[in-house]
């Protein structure tokens, strides 16, 4: 059974505890000097991959050679992919290199983004529950399921640009008479969350994307083939509007959706979602929430520094704006015909609850509060849990013993040594009066 795309290589892990505090769902513990990921809680955001200094946290994506299982191999490059090549002459050069590394066709995900943009404006115009929260970042959808399940109905029930692009291109090939099992569609991804998304999609029965390739994995091949001759004429499909999906503002235009907040970076997103839960942002119409700082440009599988990437992409966007507009009207119309709404609801997965039985949960809660009072509350991480509160919960749930806290251990040693010291005193004082001296 497919589990997660964020995994741990135990051989490389030294138990340094750098990762445990960066996890937004408190899904990592260090036990026996090795990190362990609690599968239910992991949302594949890649924060731990970014911080791990030993390379022990890895993303599991598909191998490039798997594309050869298919006769027709279509690349779906995310717009953040272009920014990894600041020295490229133009985007056409990047797209043609994709042909050179083995793909038979390329569809820029940016153009699906442009269509999703229009569908989103329509949806927000008719929505009744505000703010509407973007759903194209799979890590955010998973975060909401686990940590903010009360906000599930706020999530925009529209598929991601990656999925829409896959649907459109497969539909087109099938209409041209090609068999579905001969068509392989591959997303070139800045992050591990997209890899998990195609195996366990939210809001749909199954994803039409056949594989997710990490931008890091194909980078070297791309660089080698960048200047090679390409026999295929490459036509741009996405206008500058599609390219801006890679940035922290997201793909929507602030002037069309007035009262719009764009937030990037896990901690900042969590802060904003807490406010939505408290009801203090109900006057905001749309929130673009992206798990990575810098938007997709800051994804865990990106090579370039996200601030440099932003500069690169912005230049290309400005260039596109000043050149003749790319004529993709016909293409956008065709993509616009494809169904784009979620076909099923997102299920809440609250992983923070102690027990299904409320009475038992209350009892455990009281035990946790009592234990927490004894702990130093400094969240040092030596016990392997991210906070003292988490540790108290682990102990009550019997996933950890109290002695794993260095401070509690020392206190116990002190108590034990006092007992031992008392044992060295003579047990009963000799009462000379009672026994009389000779």
């Amino acid at each position, binding site marked *: 059974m497919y589990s997660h795309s964020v995994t741990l290589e135990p051989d490389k892990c030294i138990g340094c505890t750098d990762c445990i505090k960066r996890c937004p769902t408190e899904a990592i513990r260090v036990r026996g000097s090795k990190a362990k990921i609690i599968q239910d809680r992991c949302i594949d955001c890649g924060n731990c991959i970014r911080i791990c200094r030993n390379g022990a946290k890895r993303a599991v994506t598909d191998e490039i050679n798997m594309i050869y299982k298919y006769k027709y191999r279509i690349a779906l490059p995310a717009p953040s992919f272009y920014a990894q090549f600041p020295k490229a002459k133009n985007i056409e050069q990047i797209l043609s290199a994709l042909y050179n590394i083995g793909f038979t066709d390329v569809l820029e995900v940016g153009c699906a983004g442009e269509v999703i943009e229009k569908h989103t404006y329509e949806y927000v115009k008719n929505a009744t529950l505000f703010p509407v929260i973007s759903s194209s970042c799979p890590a955010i959808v998973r975060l909401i399921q686990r940590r903010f399940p009360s906000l599930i109905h706020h999530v925009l029930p529209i598929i991601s640009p990656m999925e829409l692009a896959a649907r459109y291109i497969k539909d087109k090939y099938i209409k041209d008479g090609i068999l579905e099992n001969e068509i392989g569609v591959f997303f070139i991804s800045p992050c591990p969350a997209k890899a998990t998304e195609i195996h366990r999609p939210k809001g749909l029965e199954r994803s039409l994307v056949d594989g997710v390739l990490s931008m890091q994995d194909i980078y070297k091949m791309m660089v080698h083939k960048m200047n090679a001759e390409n026999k295929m004429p490459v036509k741009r499909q996405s206008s500058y509007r599609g390219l801006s999906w890679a940035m922290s503002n997201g793909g929507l235009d602030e002037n069309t959706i007035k009262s719009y907040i764009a937030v990037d970076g896990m901690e900042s997103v969590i802060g904003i979602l807490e406010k939505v839960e408290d009801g203090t942002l109900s006057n905001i119409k749309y929130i673009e929430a992206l798990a990575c700082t810098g938007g997709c440009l800051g994804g865990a599988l990106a090579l370039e520094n996200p601030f440099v990437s932003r500069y690169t992409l912005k230049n290309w966007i400005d260039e596109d704006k000043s050149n003749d507009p790319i004529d993709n009207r016909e293409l956008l119309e065709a993509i616009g015909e494809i169904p784009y709404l979620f076909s099923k609801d997102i299920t809440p997965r609250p992983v*923070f609850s102690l027990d299904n039985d*409320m009475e038992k949960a209350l009892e455990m809660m009281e035990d946790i509060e009592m234990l927490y009072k004894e702990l130093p509350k400094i969240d040092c991480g030596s016990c392997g849990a991210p906070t003292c509160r988490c540790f108290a919960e682990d102990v009550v749930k019997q996933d950890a013993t109290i002695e794993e806290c260095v401070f509690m251990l020392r206190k116990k040693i002190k108590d034990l040594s006092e007992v031992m010291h008392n044992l060295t005193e003579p047990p009963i004082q000799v009462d000379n009066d009672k026994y009389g001296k000779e």
Partner: protein
Amino acid sequence: MKLHYEVDGDSFLVAGEASASLKRTLKQLGIDSSIIRKTSISMYEAEMNMVIHAHGGVIDVEISTDKVNIILKDIGPGIPDIDLAMREGYSTATHEIRELGFGAGMGLPNMKKNSDNLKVYSEVGVGTTVEITVFLT
């Protein structure tokens, strides 16, 4: 189970922390998310009122299997006319407070909308007690 919070009336930076803390606790207890939402909205409004008008106070929460009971006590100026205060849009917030975006006059009405039982006791010059009950079933 009982929980106790002290609300610092002079710090806007940490205002809302008690409601945030209770929200985390309720999530751990596995309470239905729509009920948590009601509880956190009404408690947040009450906590903010304590900071805006009364220089802080104390909050005592009692959680049982059938309900959450929140009692907020302050020794602030008190509310002269409670019915008037319950009216939407009515606010006694100062100019500075309104500049910060608060004081829209929706606090008490929001509390009433988001709780199953709301009791407000107040005496001018003595203080105010707000009791919010949200049923879990």
